[in-house]
Each structure stands twice: as C-alpha cells, then as structure tokens.
C-alpha cells in the first residue's frame, strides 16, 4: 500500500491543485482513463466542501487529502477539521432537488449529491477529530512499478 498525502490551507484557490494531484496519482495507480474525470470532479467536490466547512467554522488547520493506492483499488480520503455530525450528509443525493432552489446556500449538499452520483463506493463519517469522505475506485491493472 502506497500513500500520497496532501495538506493545504483551506483556501478555494488550492482546490484545483488537489484535483490535479489526485488525478495524477489515480492515473499512476491504474484507475481507468475514462474514470479520471470523475475522480477529478469528486475530489474537487470533497475538497470544496472541506474548505467551506473550515471557513465557516473558522478552522486554521489545513485540509487533509490522502491518496491511497491498494492492490486492486484506489482510495481518496478528504478530511475536514469539523468535529461532530459535520459529515452527516450521506443521504446527499436525496437533498439535491431542494438545494437546486437555493442560491449558493446548500452547496455542501449539492457537492455530496454530485459525489454520491459519481462514485459507487463512498463513505461519509463524522468523528471527534473531524469529518471524512472516503471514495474508492477499482484499478484496472496492477500499479506501475518504478
């Protein structure tokens, strides 16, 4: 198992960097080319959500992204620093319709709706240390060894 860890200050301009890094590591791990767009979008959504939570809760700590290469799968964990039920949005998809009527507010839920629409294997957890979104994709081939 190999891991790349990325930490960035909770600023919107860094979300693009997280997308690019995640897509590069996913490609290397053997995630299908056709799925890379989904990886990019899903990790961007998770990071945007984390940045928003850090901003609204005035958290100075960076957003943490773990990119985990496993034997037959590739996982991305995006952690925020908001303890408690901050991650209580696993049912995000069901909320998308209501969100569509709002303006700006509720983008958290729309982000989760997009993630759950895109990724088959998603886990949203809330803990004392903060919330976490874990997304997993299968890899088509064994990882390319250097």
């Amino acid at each position, binding site marked *: 198992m190999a891991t790349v860890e990325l930490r960035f200050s909770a600023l919107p301009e860094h979300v693009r960097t997280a997308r690019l890094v995640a897509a590069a590591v996913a490609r290397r791990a053997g995630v299908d080319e056709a799925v890379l767009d989904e990886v990019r979008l899903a990790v961007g959504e998770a990071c945007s959500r984390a940045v928003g939570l850090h901003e609204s809760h005035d958290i100075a700590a960076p957003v943490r992204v773990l990119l985990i290469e496993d034997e037959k799968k590739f996982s991305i964990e995006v952690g925020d620093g908001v303890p408690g039920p901050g991650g209580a949005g696993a049912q995000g998809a069901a909320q998308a319709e209501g969100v569509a009527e*709002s303006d700006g507010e509720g983008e958290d839920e729309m982000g989760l709706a997009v993630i759950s629409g895109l990724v088959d294997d998603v886990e949203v957890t809330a803990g004392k240390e903060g919330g976490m979104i874990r997304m997993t994709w299968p890899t088509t081939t064994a990882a390319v060894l250097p």
Partner: protein
Amino acid sequence: MDLSLSTRTVGDRTVVEVGGEIDVYTAPKLREQLVELVNDGSYHLVVDMERVDFLDSTGLGVLVGGLKRVRAHEGSLRLVCNQERILKIFRITGLTKVFPIHTSVEEAVAATD
C-alpha cells in the same frame, strides 16, 4: 486555467461565453457577471459553456442562482453545451429538468419556450 468571461448581445438575448474552469475559486466571478447583467436589465441570458473545461457543484449553484434572478423578471437562462463530461453533472443532479440545454448558441437564441 482560469475563468474567462465575455458577453455580447444577440437581439433581445445576452450571450455569456464562459471558458476555463468553474469551481469554488472562480465561480464567484461568474456569479458577479450574472448579477451585474440582471441588475443592468438583461433578463434573457444564454450561457455558452462550449469552452468550459471543468464544472463543479459551486458552478451549478451559481447557474441556479442566475436562473432564480432572471425568473424574478420573467426572464430566461438557457445553456449551450455539447460536452458529455459537463452534461453528466447536470444529469446526476437532476438539473437537466431545470435548465433548457441547447446544442448551439443560434438554437438557444431562437428558442422561445
């Protein structure tokens, strides 16, 4: 890649051509542009997304906000998009039912219903 925005008038429609990436960082610029147009009295908007490389839920939120604003003035907001990767985001969020999506600016400008 940053966001590029340009506007032009075609008849009673205002075409907003968007290029680049619409995400949590750049979406506020698009929001400002749409708000400004509506404040200036442009209530029939066509957002041309053919040159958009990336769109996330923040961008969707801005488009929904724009739609809400023009509707308050009996206006319309139509999208132009042929890119499957972008259309997919509208489909999974159910927004294809909310926005009229056209294959060309000409078609969007000519549309009346």
